[in-house]
Structure formats: structure tokens, C-alpha cells
């Protein structure tokens, strides 16, 4: 018995993207630049800073990362990931020219328009710079619209710092204040940045909270100790943003995995202010 099929699209079907460039950022950490294999899809595709996607290594499965490139840079998307599980190992084995899946963009975005005319302070730790890189470039590409830009970035060791070339580029820019730090013991003899944990470095750098937005991403322990510092500096919870990274499968509010209370991180997030985070049950 035949019944006509409807035109509901398959929301689980990824775009096929070709890897155009692979950059090894740190041990086990890679950045892929991806381009659409189908130009029509490329034409229609848009996203905004803060959104994430599901990346497939076909045969291994899907993994969730934010889009690490800026929406201001057209024609490609970039993602940065650390090789850890089955999917990321599958992805890590891929090279330029290989095809991977990309499903997205999903989730909400950083309210960049609302931030216009403000100072922006980025605080990132380790592998959490990628979700912020998207916003950083977005802001820098529209530099005139924002006031002071401060980037505070720390990693365990010098080797663990990602986007080393871009860090140098930001460092060289007069309109960006970059402070990098590594944990004590993680420095190399020629390390010129700070030595110390991120919260202490933030405190020392003391960015002004006046007319400022802070974006904080990093491991839970870093966030836990950085928030009081920002608060002491006068940042209000509603002006501090972060992105949550709960485990996801579908990315579209079906699979039930990322829920924090009634909140779907995939739909209502991943971008939250700390004012919002405080309201969430402690399950993230």
C-alpha cells in the first residue's frame, strides 16, 4: 500500500565537506578548514558566531564542536578538535581532500550586535579558545564597531597553546591587547608570556568592567575561579558569556542528551550568560 512521502528534510543528513587545510595546533589538536562539496549548499549556508555543528567521520560517528571560524570569513568553516574518542580519532586520521560530514549550524549565538560600542574581554583556557576564536575574528573583522579588545589566554604548557600563528598576529596588532600565560612548569626557556593560572593572570591584567562584556570559556575549574575575579573587577553576570559543552548526539533537541533541567543546550544554548547559568540546575 503506497502512501505519498512528504517533503520533510532529513535533519540527520550532514553536508559533505572536503577538508581543504589541516593545521596541527598542539599535540593531538587539529584544525580543519572545510569547504562544501556542493556549491549550491555553500551558497545557501550561513551561520553566526557561537553556533556549533555535528561533524561526522563516516564509519565512526558524529562529534560536536563549535564552529571556530568567523562568519565574516566566507566560503569555508573551520573546526578545531582534540583527538580523544572514536570519532575524533577518525577525524584525526583524515587529510586534505578527504570528505567529512557537517551538520549545522545549530544553537544560539553571541549577541554581537548588542555588544557594539563596548569593550570586549576574552578569557580562554586550553582547548576552549576555538569556540572563542570565532567571536574574536568576528569582532576583529568589524573592529570599528567595538572598543577595547582584550584577549587573555592560558594553557597548561607552551605546546598546548593553540592557534600559535594567530596569537602572534593578535600580539602584533596595536588594537588588541593579548595576554598569554602557561601554568607554572609549562614554560619553555624562550617563553615570553606570563607564567601562572588564568584567574590570577586575569586579576593582574585587570580589564575594566566599565561598558565591557566578558566571554569566558575553559575547563570547569578555570571558570570556577575566574568568575569571582571578574565579579571583583565589576563584571555583572549578565555581561559575562560562555558556551556550554554538554554531550550531544542529535544537536536538534530530540535525543535528550544535552538537557540541563528543562533547558536544551543544543537549542537554548550553547551560549549563555552567567546570569542564565546560575539559574540552571547543576547538571552541566
Amino acid at each position, binding site marked *: 500500500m503506497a502512501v505519498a512521502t512528504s517533503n520533510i528534510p532529513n535533519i540527520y543528513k550532514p553536508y559533505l565537506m572536503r577538508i581543504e587545510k589541516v593545521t596541527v595546533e598542539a599535540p593531538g589538536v587539529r584544525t580543519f578548514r572545510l569547504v562544501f562539496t556542493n556549491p549550491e549548499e555553500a551558497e545557501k549556508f550561513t551561520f553566526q558566531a557561537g553556533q556549533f555543528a555535528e561533524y561526522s567521520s563516516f564509519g565512526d560517528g558524529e562529534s560536536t564542536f563549535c564552529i571556530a571560524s568567523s562568519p565574516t570569513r566566507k566560503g569555508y568553516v573551520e573546526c578545531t578538535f582534540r583527538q580523544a574518542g572514536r570519532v575524533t580519532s577518525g577525524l584525526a586520521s*583524515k587529510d586534505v581532500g578527504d570528505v567529512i560530514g557537517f551538520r549545522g549550524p545549530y544553537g544560539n549565538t553571541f549577541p554581537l550586535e548588542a555588544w557594539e560600542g563596548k569593550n570586549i574581554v576574552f578569557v580562554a583556557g586550553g582547548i576552549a579558545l576555538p569556540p572563542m576564536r570565532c567571536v574574536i575574528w568576528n569582532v576583529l573583522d568589524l573592529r570599528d564597531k567595538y572598543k577595547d579588545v582584550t584577549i587573555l589566554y592560558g594553557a597548561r604548557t607552551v605546546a598546548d597553546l593553540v592557534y600559535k600563528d594567530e596569537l602572534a598576529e593578535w600580539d602584533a596588532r596595536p588594537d588588541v591587547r593579548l595576554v598569554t600565560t602557561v601554568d607554572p612548569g609549562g614554560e619553555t626557556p624562550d617563553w615570553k608570556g606570563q607564567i601562572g593560572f588564568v584567574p590570577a593572570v586575569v586579576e593582574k591584567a585587570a580589564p575594566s568592567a566599565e561598558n565591557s562584556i566578558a566571554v569566558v570559556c575553559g575547563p570547569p575549574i578555570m571558570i570556577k575561579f575566574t568568575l569571582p575575579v571578574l565579579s571583583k573587577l565589576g563584571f555583572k553576570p549578565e555581561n559575562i558569556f560562555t558556551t556550554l559543552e554538554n554531550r550531544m548526539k542529535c544537536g536538534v533537541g530530540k535525543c535528550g542528551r544535552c538537557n540541563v533541567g528543562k533547558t536544551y543546550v543544543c537549542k537554548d544554548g550553547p551560549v549563555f550568560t552567567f546570569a542564565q547559568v546560575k539559574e540552571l540546575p547543576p547538571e552541566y
Partner: protein
Amino acid sequence: MARIGVFVCHCGENIAGTVDCPKVVESMMHIPGVVHAVDYKYMCSDPGQRMVRDAIREHKLTGVVVAACSPRMHEPTFRRACAEAGLNPFLCEISNIREHCSWVHEKSEATTQKAIDLVRVMVEKVKRNRELQPISVPVTKTALVLGGGIAGIQAALDIANCGHKVVLVEREPSIGGHMAQLSETFPTLDCSQCIMTPRMVEVAQNENITLYTYSELESLDGFIGNFKAKIRMKARSVDMNLCTGCGSCYQKCPQKKIPSEFNTGLGTRTAIYTPFLQAVPNKPVIDRDNCLYFKKGVCKLCEKVCPTKAIKYDQQDEIVEVDVGAVVVATGYNVLNTGFFPEYGYGKYKDVITGLQFERLASASGPTSGEIRRPSDGKVPETVVFVACSGSRDPAKGLPYCSKVCCMYTAKHAMLYKHKMHEGKAYIFYMDIRAGGKMYEEFVRRAVEEDGVNYVRGRVSRIYEEDGQLVVKGADTLLGGMPLEIKADLVVLATAMVASPGAEELAQKLHVSYDAYKFISEAHPKLRPVETNTAGVFVAGACQAPKDIPETVAQASGAASKVLQLFSKPELMREPVVAVVNRTAPPLFSTCVGCFLCEKACPYQAIGREEIKARDGKVLKVVAKVNAGLCQGCGTCVALCRSKSIDLQGFTNEQIFAEIMAL
């Protein structure tokens, strides 16, 4: 981000004759991760190796697959080549498209396709290979030699004479083995004991050799360079330190009718005895099964007559533990025994004897002092029939192999008989004569031509007694299968050489493999004839296969040289193919759940326990830990681990899965 190079070897025509090598190369270029593929006539040649080195540098390879012969042949070659080019040698793998493909198939599309499959499988493995570093382990420079026959004696002396300690273990009360039992030896007819006993004395006198007779290996643990052997010294009931070997005890022992093992049952011995006069050590042992005191609690005559009070009835078995770096197995052989030849009446007719029994009859130290007299009535036989291949080369009886020495010793036996009994008639039933060896063929010709031995080509079907006379029934196949009946006074069966009793159990203790006939297997039949599949355990003499004295001695010296090679360095480098227990992120730390069934299963005692502690020192978890020095990479623990928390470096589960999934 794998960058794999594939190097397909033609091996001259060996591979290229059946496999389309260029096609293999072409198909490799379609596999993700393969950035370079090339074929060459002889990849193992200098230019071939250079191709590998150059490609590693030029293409920045992260892995190399050489499709060629068995990794047993050239894996070290190519791994070295990779190392020279700066690539960790363990990122190089061999795909065996010769033994596994070209040699076993005809030239066809399917053969080439199989070669492609085999190489692709290895490409998928290499993609998942990790850099590994060799493991260095110290070497205990003491050798354990099991068996005090000519093989064990030769190996022990060779090693000891190079200044290393040797522990020599012999099951019987004296060393000497079968060679001490022999009369004259072919092809020179020199007296066996005359050449054997000096060697035995040398062993006893050598300071580097510790001799344990009447002892057996209890267990062997550890690994190459670092074995721990437990030796059971069976209770001798005689204090070796006090005994002077004066012999008063066995002269007085009332139990005199015990069949002598040394004389193959043709003579007798006492309950307290030394096996033979030249025994080393020349100190007696009480055979508790036959001793009146042990059987009935009375007698103690030996204790009374012993001038040094050396008799110790309450002596217990003693276990001694020795650390050794290498083991030579030289446990010899046995002769096929009764019951095997119901049609020949062995065991039923006293005058049907084995070749070894004949040796004792012919030996000056034997029960007849070297006169050939038949066991039943001591009469000198006028007609002797020798039956070659008694048991050997008889697939129907389960012994398809040739015992190798029978042709020669049968010729010798007939010759010895004829030398002593010029008028006697000697017949030899044979299948064919195998006399490969220096002066061997000449020796056989001498028996036929000079000593008038009657060689009858044919098998004996039956031996029976008729009117008190043995009748040998056979056929002469050279005369068209003419039936033949010979009335014989004595029949000598050239019984097959078989593995010595307990060979299987011993092999299991040593973790070495053995063949269907319980002979110990060598690591490679041609290129590693004195090694076993367990590193550090070597093999010499007839425990590996039937062989004669010169061959045995040569092999024993070969095994000794392998031991010496091992002892020539303070440490040895081992492949890092060892098991590792995983580590995961806290709070799990490891998926090992600490059931320690692996600990029990590990044949090398390589698994210990490790506590995972919190910062405050509190033990969070106890997990298995592999001692890389002890681990032999056998993978037993990997197979056993239910949660898959142990993996074998170089052969990880992931690699094996990738190989299978690539098919």
C-alpha cells in the same frame, strides 16, 4: 593524517611470477592515507632499501608497509632502514605476499586481488601504529642445561669453558645418557664409553658446572635472560657429601634381582646402586620401590655397612631455585618399547631384542662382557636377523618418520656380530639404506662386502616360534616379493627413536612447542635449528628429532654458541611488544576493574598490582600493571580481559580490528 608508503617487492619471480605487482601498487594509491606506492625487483637489496629511506624523507611518511616475504625474513632489514631515515622502526610493517600469497597460489587475478587485500590490511594497521621504544633487560649469565647425555654434556662444557656458570640437571642417578650404554660407534667403531667417560669426568671436575643428578625440572618461570628455575632433587637416600662411593652398600644389598635399566633389563642390579661403574657422580642411590627397608621396614644393611654414615632413609625431595639466563633442552630420546610389535613377538620371545639391548650385549661393560649371547639360554646365536625400520617409517603405526640412525647401527650390529662370530649368519631386512654422512655409505658397503652381511630388501611380516625355534617370515622384494622364512637364534629390532617419557610435560613447563611425536620444535627448521619458539630456550640432540652422535654434538655446540651469544652482552634489547593496562580520564583513571584474573593467567608472572591514589594519598583503586621486563607479549591477558582494559603494544585490539575490517 596518516602518510603511508607502500613498497611492493617482486622478490625476483617469487612474487612477481604470480602477483601483478604494478597492479598492487596502482590499487594502493586509491586507499586514503597512502601517499606513495612503488614496486621493485628486490626491495631487500641496497637500492630497494634506499627507495624506502628516500621515500620516508621525501614524502614525510608516517608509516611504511613493505609487501614482500615473511616478516621473519626481512622485518629487521626494513625496520632498520626506516630507523636510518628517522622513522620509528615500529611504524614499519611487513605484508607477507610471498608465503601467504604468491607461493601458495597460481598466477591469476584472484591471486593479485588477494595480495592487494593483504597489503591493504597492513596499511590499515600501520595507520594505527604508534612509535615504540625497545626495552632493555639485564641478563643472568648462568645457563640451565636439562639432560646429561652427550648433548647436555657438550653444551654444558662449551658454555662452562667460556667462563659462564652452568647448572646441569639429569633425571637419572648418573650423567652419560644413552651414549654411555653403547658399545662401539659407527662409522669408526671406536668404543663409546672410551670417548664418553672423559667428557663425564670433565663435567664433574669443571668448577663452573653445578651438577644435579637424580633431579628434575619442577618449573621454569621468567623470560629470556631472567628465568627462575625450580629443580626437584629427588631423595637419593644417600648423603652426597658423606658418601665416598666405596661401594660397600651395594655389595651387601640383599635385593639383587632388580632388572638393570642401564643394561636394558638384560642384567640385574641391587636396590641401592650406581647405574654403572663409571657413573658420574659415582655415588649410589636407593631405589625406594625395591628397597626392603622402604617396602617392609626391615633390612638397613646398607646403613650398617656404610663407613661414613651416608645412608639417610629419611631424606626428602629438595627444591632448589636457580636464576638462569638461558636454557638448553637436551633431554634425549627413548627407544620404542614393547607392545608396539605384537607380530614380532617382542616381550613374548626372550630372543627378540631391541637394538639398544644388542648394544649392551656387544658392550664390554655389558651383562655378557661383550660376548654375543642370546638372553634365553646364553647360547651364542648362529643366525641373527636384524629388522630395520622397526616402528619407524610406518604411518600405519603412527610413526611415519625415519629414525635416521638405525640403518647405520644395524649395519654396525651385524658387523660386530660377524666380527665376533665369523661363521654366524647375519640377515638384515631393510626398506632402503640411508647412509648419508661422512664415511657412512662406505661403512655399510663394508658390512655387505667385507663382512658378508645378508641384506634382504623387504619387510618382516611376522616372527613366531616353531619347535623352540624363532622363525622370521618376510619377503624379498628384490626377488619379486618372494616369500622368505629364516630360522633365527636371535632377532634384533632396530626400534624407532621416540621422545623420552615426560617430554610433553617438560615442553609445557618450558612453554616451548612440540610436534605430534612430542619432539621439541625448533624455531625455524632451517635457519633457527637450535632455538625454540621461546626466546632463551635452546634445543640440542635427540629431544628435537632422531639424530646420531656427531649431529647431536654439533647441535649442542650450536646451542651453546647461541647461549654464549646471549651472554656476550650485559643487557639485551627486546621488542616493546608488551601488554599495557589502559589509563583513562578521572574519575575512572583506568577501565581496569581489578579482578586480576589476568594475573593468574599470565604465564610469565608479568602482571602485578598498582594503586591509584588521590592527591591526599588515599587509594582510589587497585589496577593491574604489566611489568614490561617480564611480559613476553603473548596476549593471553588481552584475550582474557573482559573490559578490554589491557592491550598489546604493536598488536592492539584497534589495529587487529582495523585489519579485519579492511578485508
